[in-house]
């Protein structure tokens, strides 16, 4: 089972995305065997979280089991959030850099109170989302699963990101980004433990095939690859774990795709 922790739909103003639609993503997922992808709509990351979140939930409903939704919370607009158990919901997406609001800002308190898993953009040396801020919020909210998007984005910071969160087991290192390599995914598994590393592609922003290829062809043991490409996220979201050695196949908490 391959689960993509970090995906998007929709256009983005910064550059051309030839295939921003969910239909194309499903075709690409089918081609390489990705079961499901967690998405936020790029409109929601941008100026209209309410409308973008509704569009993402509509897509998840249209393709049952293929998309989970990371509903975007804009701290300036105090976006209304669906609670745990909402159909198709995986958690909350934060983008401190786009929203220009530090990850450790109190404006995010409503997010942590939901108890939902949180996927946040992480960017080494950013004033908004440096990995040190993940440590701060992970210590404040140790029961909230927190995915560090991009593991800090820049290769020079990957090792530091892994070291910083070593004592915060609720933080997971999500691996999408144009500077990530298969070599670094294997290094992160060695540094942090494969159980703390999650596959994400950033598709449609980035190409799903390139993103998954980094995991598929990374120099990893098969058991570690199985954890990274789906096992860890399935456990975190409470999805069945059919492919994992020693798994009972039972969800640990209810939050189906």
């Amino acid at each position: 089972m391959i689960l993509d922790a970090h995906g998007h739909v929709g256009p983005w103003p910064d550059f051309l995305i030839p295939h921003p639609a969910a239909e194309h993503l499903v075709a690409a997922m089918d081609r390489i065997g990705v079961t499901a992808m967690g998405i936020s709509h790029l409109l929601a990351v941008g100026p209209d979280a309410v409308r973008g979140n509704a569009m993402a939930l509509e897509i998840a409903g249209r393709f049952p089991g293929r998309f989970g939704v990371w509903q975007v919370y804009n701290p300036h607009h105090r976006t209304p959030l669906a609670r745990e158990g909402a159909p198709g919901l995986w958690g909350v997406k934060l983008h401190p850099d786009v929203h220009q609001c530090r990850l450790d800002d109190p404006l995010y308190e409503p997010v942590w109170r939901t108890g939902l898993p949180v996927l946040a953009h992480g960017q080494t040396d950013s004033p908004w989302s440096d990995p040190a801020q993940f440590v701060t919020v992970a210590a404040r909210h140790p029961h909230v699963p927190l995915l560090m998007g991009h593991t800090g984005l820049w290769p020079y910071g990957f090792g530091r990101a892994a070291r910083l969160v070593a004592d915060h087991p609720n933080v997971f290192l999500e691996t999408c980004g144009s500077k990530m390599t298969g070599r670094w995914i294997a290094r992160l598994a060695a540094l942090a433990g494969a159980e703390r590393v999650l596959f994400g592609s950033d598709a449609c922003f980035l190409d799903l095939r390139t993103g998954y290829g980094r995991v598929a062809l990374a120099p990893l043991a098969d058991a570690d690859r199985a954890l990274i490409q789906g096992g860890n996220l399935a456990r975190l979201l409470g999805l069945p774990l059919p492919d994992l050695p020693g798994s009972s196949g039972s969800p640990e908490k209810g939050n189906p795709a």
Partner: protein
Amino acid sequence: MPKYVIDAHRLIGPVPFDDLPADPRGEMDRLGIDRALVTHTLSLYSDPGAGNEALLALGDPRLVPVPVVVPGETGEDLPGVRMVRLCPERHRFDLTGPATLRCLSALGLPAAIDLDETSPAQLRHLAERLPGQRVLVLNPGYRRLRALGELMDAAPNVWAEIGTVNTQGGVEWLAARFGAERLVFGTGAPVADDCGPRFLLDHLDLPAEDVERIASGSLEALL
């Protein structure tokens, strides 16, 4: 899956900022890459001449040398070389200045240039000044897809490396506009990733003959 794969963009040697494999052959074997065009890291991070000397001494037919040329300094006698690399930003020279134009004319070889070392406008200017010059754009990335397309439209002797064309469907978008014969498999490894681009090559939504072109045929035609 393509029968024969050539990576048009690889490095050999150590880099100063990371602990990466200095010899590409182990990863090439693991990933099913038959040959690679390689530049020595000494040429990028130290002395271009010393790097070229080490590169040309490799003597392995799997590793096709791509020496780095600094116009007016590194010499124009490069026996057996099929492509050179230019680093106008790193080595601080003018890509369309008289020294470079004179050097490229004398060499008569294709030139590989990282887009981060120049700009689409500079490359278009180069193509206007030397219309017969073949250029392989390394590391075009995904954020400048529109500008890359405009360049390839204006300059028919420009090819693009696909390893960093990394937005959803970006390679197919280029192939639809310019043909797979203008696209070349390359990675920039080990600094850049080779696993993702190698997987992408096997899963392109293109006819098999176009995938073969991208895997090796387009590069062979370029050279």
